[in-house]
């Protein structure tokens, strides 16, 4: 048992004997797994969006600009009890102004318009489409919304769902080729590092063999080295990805998208780390065989 841990430590220590080569490898693995992770995050978020919006459709309702807040609040109260409605977001003229300002990243000062907002009260009504005759139902919904007091205009965009679906189709198609390609790159990089390490230590490994070291004794630390590189690279990449995520989390949380980017779930993170460690081991094995 103590030999096992000794060899485990040996594998990691041996890597640090060539710190530059280790740095370059880790950098390459980090870069590649960062790209892969970012791609996974994209797929994950598209999936979430399609899951949330599948079969749903949004109606944007605009009231006449002169409508008073009291008048419109009364109507809003009744919106969510309408048939098929799953979610309602409402905006008073001032709130709409706030959202507009936010979408300009607050670079335009609209504070002075507070209370005199030229924007009308609006509502975003999200409805679940019935399984059949969705188009017809949507048309009738438009009619019903338009019939509400003081409503000026109702618009809805059935394309939104179609567009999202085609995006998801595209990423699904690209998923395995992209993942495969990135994994091959990682395998080549790790394999090459191990091969260089083998070359630099040829004499030492030969001596180990001559004094009676078993094949496992010699190879195990090298495999640990491969796993460690994959592990470290993947860990760093996930850290960077989290930083990126913090930066862009709220970026698309503006009209009309209203989507928060979510980070990869823990299971995905675990799979990424485990896969890269496994690729590290495999490519070390291949380097050893040759």
């Amino acid at each position, binding site marked *: 048992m103590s*030999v096992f841990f000794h060899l485990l430590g040996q594998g990691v220590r041996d890597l640090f004997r060539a710190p530059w080569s280790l740095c370059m490898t880790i950098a390459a693995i980090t870069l590649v797994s960062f790209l892969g992770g970012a791609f996974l995050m994209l797929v994950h978020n598209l999936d979430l969006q399609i899951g949330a919006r599948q079969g749903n459709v949004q109606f944007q309702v605009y009231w006449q600009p002169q409508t008073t807040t009291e008048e419109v609040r009364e109507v809003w109260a009744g919106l969510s009890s309408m048939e098929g409605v799953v979610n309602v977001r409402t905006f008073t003229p001032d709130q709409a102004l706030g959202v507009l300002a936010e979408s300009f990243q607050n670079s335009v000062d609209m504070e002075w318009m507070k209370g005199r907002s030229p924007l009308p009260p609006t509502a975003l009504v999200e409805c679940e489409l019935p399984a059949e005759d969705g188009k017809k139902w949507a048309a009738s919904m438009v009619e019903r919304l338009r019939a509400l007091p003081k409503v000026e205009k109702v618009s809805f965009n059935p394309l939104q769902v179609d567009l999202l679906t085609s995006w998801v189709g595209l990423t699904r198609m690209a998923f395995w080729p992209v993942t495969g390609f990135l994994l091959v790159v990682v395998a080549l990089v790790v394999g090459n590092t191990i091969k260089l390490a083998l070359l630099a230590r040829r*004499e*030492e490994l*030969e*001596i*180990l*063999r*001559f*004094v*009676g*070291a*078993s*094949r496992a*004794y010699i190879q195990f630390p090298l495999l640990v080295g491969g796993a460690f590189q994959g592990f470290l690279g993947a860990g760093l990449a996930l850290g960077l990805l989290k930083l990126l995520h913090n930066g862009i989390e709220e970026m698309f949380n503006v009209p009309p998208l209203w989507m928060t980017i979510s980070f990869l779930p823990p299971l995905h993170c675990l799979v990424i780390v485990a896969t890269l460690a496994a690729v590290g081991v495999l490519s070390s094995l291949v380097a050893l065989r040759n």
Partner: protein
Amino acid sequence: MITISKMSYTFGKQLALKDVNFCMKQGEFVFLCGPSGAGKTTFMRILHGALPVQRGKVDVAGYDLNTLPERRKHLLRRDVSVVFQDFKILTNQTVFANVALPLKVRGIPRHIIEKRVRAVLRSLHLDHKAMSPCEELSGGEQQRVAVARAVVVKPKLLLADEPTGNLDYELSMRMMDIFQQFHKFGTSIMIATHNREIMERMSGARVVTLHDGVMHEGCVETGGGL
């Protein structure tokens, strides 16, 4: 301990060993002499599996080298220790680390390693250098490290290729005393050497001679050599 019949070895076109027949019993002490280039090193390298058996049959310490696969060679090497002509020690590591290496790869506990290495270093007058890196040692000292590493595991068979090549008379004789001690405890020993003095010291030992890849029993005057 060693049984060889009709063994030949060629490097490319060059014949290094020719139809060698050789037997060595357990506990025997054999000097292998012969001029430079006669094939002594080649012969020893085959015996511990560093070179493959090309032709003939070779059996060492109970292992049939004709069929022993690469992944089981470490078992042979745990019974057969070698002192290499070029030492093959890790020059960037300490004397202690080098001598401890064969014990470490056998998974022997640290405190036993410590005791055995110290004892061997003492008997080879290297104890004061235990913590020096080997690159700071003289040729003779490095040679003694190589010998210490070979004997520390108490091998069944010890193959020593010119183990006194870099030593003065005094140290050569001390080295022979150590070999003799191990021999008394049952280790079979084969020493390749040009050194007549050490052969005379062990006057009872068996001598075989390699000449141009051919093996003869006894000390054959060859005229050449070093």
